[in-house]
Structures are given as C-alpha cells and as structure tokens.
C-alpha cells in the first residue's frame, strides 16, 4: 500500500485531499499543529475509508523539529502534500513585523525547511511525489495581501527549482495553485461562484495531476488565463489598480 504524508491536514482543502487519497486506497499520515483538532479528522477518515490513518503533531514554524519529525515516520511516505498555510491579517502584517514574519515563516520558510528534508529522502530513494499547495496570490503582488503573496511567490519559485533539480532523479514535484476555494478561510468573503472551487474539486485536481505527473496545476482552468493576463498588465498601470 502506498502512503501519503499530508502536512497541515486540518484545513478544509487538506481534508478533501486526504479523503480522495483514502478513496484510492492510499494509507494516510496526517500532520497538523493542533492534535486536538486533528484527532477527529483522523478518526473520521479511518472510519469512512478503512485505510490506516496516523495522526502526528507538526508545527511548520518550529524548524528545528522537522528533521526528527520526518525521521520518526516509518514507513516513509510515497508522496507528500504540503498543504499548510497562514493567511494571517494582511493589514496588520503591513506594520506589525511579528505578523509579517509569521506569514513568511509558515508559508515559505517552514515549507522550505520540511521539503528540503523530504527532497533529500526522495532523491536518495529515486522516487516520490512532492505536491506543494501554493497560491495564485504568488503570481503577482497586490496591495490587499502582498505579504502572503510574496511568501507564496517564494514557495512557487522554490517548487520550480526543486522540480528542475529532481526531474532527472525520478522525483515528481507539482505546484498547485488553487484560485478561490470555498473553505473556512474564505467563509466570510463574497466570492464569485464561477471562479470558486469546492475543496473536493481541488482534491480531484491534485490527485489527477499526481497521476499524470503534471508540473503546475490551476484547479479551475480559468485561473491559468486570468493570472496570465494579471501577470502581463504593465506595472505602470498595475500600480494604480485597486487590487
């Protein structure tokens, strides 16, 4: 049986991804900061799917614990989905460096820290899939959430480089850029229905992308074109837009 390690497993998107892998017969190793919130998620998946499910504590921001965390996982996973993220308070992050740093540490530094460790293992084994859930927010910085966006931009660039490095080693690295997704993180926002994916759609895109060994996946096809346009707006216009 194949095993997938899902980092940040309590988010709605990660839970949907876990359900999809379980439905395909994969064993689950779920990791999240709050084990109190993770345990019901783990028992739920175990009862629904009957696949083996393990729940582990993992804090993306505590870098020095990552090596021990990964070493303790046995057997080692066949795929890793890096799904944790921190939207934070974009207004506060403009002036409060602690908030800005937390945003960067979780979304970028923490991801680099754990995926470096995973990449070394996969490279040595000459196999494996690394899936990073990045964001369209990283495609271009906008005033409304550029700290989150810049951290995700860094993560996207990191995944791109990792893919380049591991392509010859038999390790598949996939960047996923969900557009709007209906989750608790966006519960309060009034999102355009046609552009908003359900967590289950993201999960489908992730699993299908994994099977097809895709490189970059936008979960709703429109987003690829929207972001293509957004990226090509001349900066002299872009800087005046209320985005």
């Amino acid at each position, binding site marked *: 049986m194949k095993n997938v390690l899902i980092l940040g497993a309590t988010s709605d998107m990660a839970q949907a991804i876990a359900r999809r892998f379980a439905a395909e017969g994969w064993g689950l190793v779920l990791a999240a900061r709050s084990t*109190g919130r993770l345990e019901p998620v783990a*028992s*739920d998946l175990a009862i629904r799917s009957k696949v083996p499910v393990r729940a582990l504590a993992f804090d993306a921001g505590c870098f020095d614990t990552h090596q021990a965390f990964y070493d303790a996982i046995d057997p080692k996973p066949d795929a890793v989905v890096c799904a944790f993220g921190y939207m934070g308070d974009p207004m506060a992050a403009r002036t409060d460096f602690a908030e800005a740093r937390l945003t960067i540490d979780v979304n970028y530094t923490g991801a680099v820290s754990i995926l470096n460790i995973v990449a070394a293992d996969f490279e040595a084994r000459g196999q494996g899939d690394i899936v990073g859930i990045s964001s369209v927010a990283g495609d271009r910085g906008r005033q409304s959430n550029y700290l989150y966006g810049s951290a995700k931009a860094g993560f996207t660039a990191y995944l791109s480089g990792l893919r380049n490095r591991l392509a010859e080693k038999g390790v598949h690295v996939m960047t996923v850029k969900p557009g709007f997704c209906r989750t*608790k993180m966006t519960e309060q926002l009034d999102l355009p229905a046609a552009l908003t994916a359900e967590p289950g759609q993201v999960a489908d895109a992730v699993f299908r992308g994994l099977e097809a060994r895709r490189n970059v996946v936008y979960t709703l096809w429109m987003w690829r074109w929207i972001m293509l346009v957004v990226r090509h707006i001349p900066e002299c216009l872009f800087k005046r837009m209320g985005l």
Partner: protein
Amino acid sequence: MRRISDWGNYPVIEAETSGFDSVEQLRSRLAEPGELIAYGNGRSYGDASLQSRVVLTRRFDKLLAFDETTGELTCQAGVLLADLLDVFVPRGWFLPVTPGTKLITVGGAIAADVHGKNHHVDGSFGQHIRSMDVMRNDGSIITCSPARNAEFFNVTVGGMGLTGIILQATFRLRRIETAYIREETVRAANLGEVMDGFEAPGEWTYSVAWIDCLARGDALGRSILMRGEHATAGELVNPSHKHAPLKPGGGMKLDVPFMMPGFALSRLTVQAFNAAYYGKCRSGTQARIAGYNQFFYPLDSVGNWNRIYGRRGFTQYQFVIPKAAGREGMHRILERIAASGLGSFLAVLKLFGEQESFISFPMEGYTLALDFPISFKAMELFKELDAMVADYGGRLYLAKDSRMDAAMFARTYPNADEFRQAVAVLNEGGTRFASLLSRRIGVTG
C-alpha cells in the same frame, strides 16, 4: 448578515451566521452575550432554527468511533444522515430511525426527536441515543444519557436546541443484509379501510400511508398504505440486486432550479396529481423490492422541491391525536380539510406506537402531515384545526410548525410549563439559546 430560512421558506430573516469545527471555536462564539440557536441543515419547516444569530453546525461532522461488531457509532452532531448512509449501508448497517428526508443532521434529529415509518416498533430517534455531549451556555460540556444527567438528557431530546449545542452522540446502527426494502402497497378506499390496515395484527417494521386530502364523501381519506421490511439476501430476485445487495443504483436525480410562480399549485393541479397518483396504484395488494432511497426518501431525489411553493413559502401542518380519538377525530378533521380545498400533494398518515417523553411530539395515536402554501385562508383554517386537535387531546409537531401560538402550545404539551422553567434555568447567565419558535410559543421570553 445573510438571509436564512428553514425548509418552508417562511419566515425568511436576516441573521449573523458563523460555523465552527472545534470545541474551542464554538466556546468563543458562545462567549458573546445575546441570543442564538444552532442551525443544522435547515430542514425543519418553520422557524425552529432561526434567530438573529445562528451557529452553523454542518462543519462539525466527523465520525469519531465505530464498533464493527455492535454497530455502535459515535459522531459529531453536524453530520448528515445521508453521509452516514453512504458510509455504512455498503457495510451492512442502517439507521435505527429515519424521517422522510436523509438531509438532516444528527443534532437536528435529536433536538426535534424525529420519528420514522417504524415508530410503532422502534420509537423515536432520541430513544436510541445512548450518550451525548452538549455544550451549555457557559461553554461547559455536559455528557448525558438516560442514566447519567438524565434530567438534562430528557429536556434536550426533543428540546429544539434550547438547552445547548449538541456536540456528539452515540447510538447503534441496525444490521441489514441488503440495501433493499420488501414493500407491500395496499389501496384503501377510505379512512376506515386505511386505519384497519394500520391496526391489523402482523407487525410490519415500516408503515405509512399517503392520503388524498381532497377526496370527499364515501372516498374521504382514500389512501395508499405502504409497508416494508428490510429485504433479506434471499428475497432479492433481480440479478443486478443479487450481485451487489448492499449497493443500490443511483436512481434519477431531479432539481427544481428556481422558485415556481404562485399559480403552479392550484386546486386543479393538485387534484389532478392526487387522482393520477391514486389511480396509478392498482386495487388490492402489490408487492415489490425497492431501493432504500426509493422507499424512505422519494422526495430527496427532487432537489429543492420546496421551490414549487414559490416565494411566499409553505408550511406543513402535522398533528397527532390519541388513538382512542383517532377514528372520529381524524374523520372530522379530514372533512374540514377536504371542504377547504386547500390540501396539497403531500399528506401522510401514520399510526404512532406508545411514547411518553418529556417534551417530544409523538404519542400513541394517529399523525397526519400536510403541506400548505402560505395564505391567509390557510392560516384561518389552521386556527380551526388547532381547536379540533386540542379538543381531541392532540398536539402539533414543533419541527414543522411556523405559526401556532403560545396558548396552543401550553394547552397541548403537558410539560410545557416545566419545559419553559427548565430552559429558563439552563439559560441563566451569558448566552441564551432561543429561536423565533421558542419565543412564539412562549418557551423563552
């Protein structure tokens, strides 16, 4: 602020809504003072889960423990019965009690103490709860069961969410061999015949009758009595059923995409539908094997069917009257409804078994449920019916109601006053659990 309503689309209100997926999150919601009520899947018909502030429970939906030998399940209260069926029917388990829709949460099923076609054999949903955890208004969690904190348990089952937020519950699923029901359908020419059918010896686990509320005279109460048992593997005949006995086919899925205009439901269209439905069923007894969805949840296959009643919305008038008063009482009430010409497609008759709960709806007797589009004439009719129901010693189902007054509640629920006092004590200090329903019927101030 969001516009919310329950299934009848009457009333519709503006409310502040927020969900939760952890106990800590819910506790922080309760820390803000004021009134609130839990909102599950919005399938009560009237205003039982409406309030200016509601807590959405649907995200709190995890399965926590399942014992493969006894069928004992512990789950968070926001899970839908539909989800439980999807997971457990293929493994040979079914719900102990289910109402006519599977699109309700476990918490809602307990709060309304729902009943099903097997009430005369297995009682209400609440009677199957072995234990549950409820968050009180001060954020504390109370574990209760028929033996432990029994008083609190008894006020909470059927308590319409007024004692706290139900977090999780433990109950046992029932073993099934197949996902099919061996169904027998009997056409009854009038009310007397269908009641004979209900009261005939030889117990069926499931029984219910569809009744034509527009028929009058000798045909008053003409019905189709449907009875069923979980089919055993040996009873299946169709090769595709036999091949996968626990996996029934998907069936057709329809949807009502928008609110229908008011004229879609006139006396003529309803009369034509009822005549056709009754005529479709040949006289005598018919037997067939039906998938569980077809037998228990025929209306769930039509998404948003409430929209056929249009923007004005509808209500369901469901009452029960004691068995002793049943024949005469039901006859008089049906005559009054038939004379009004206001009846609807969906009128359902059932004989309940004995039940003595603190505040739940069921009692031994006949229950009739009918849908009515909201109108002034219907409201006038309900007042007349209320008086008749009360005179016969009956009562109305709170989960369906949107219009009964406090006097009717006090007169028909024997523990109405004790219930009001219990809720008042439980609500002391901090947040208060209250709904438009509880205010209207005088349970909360």
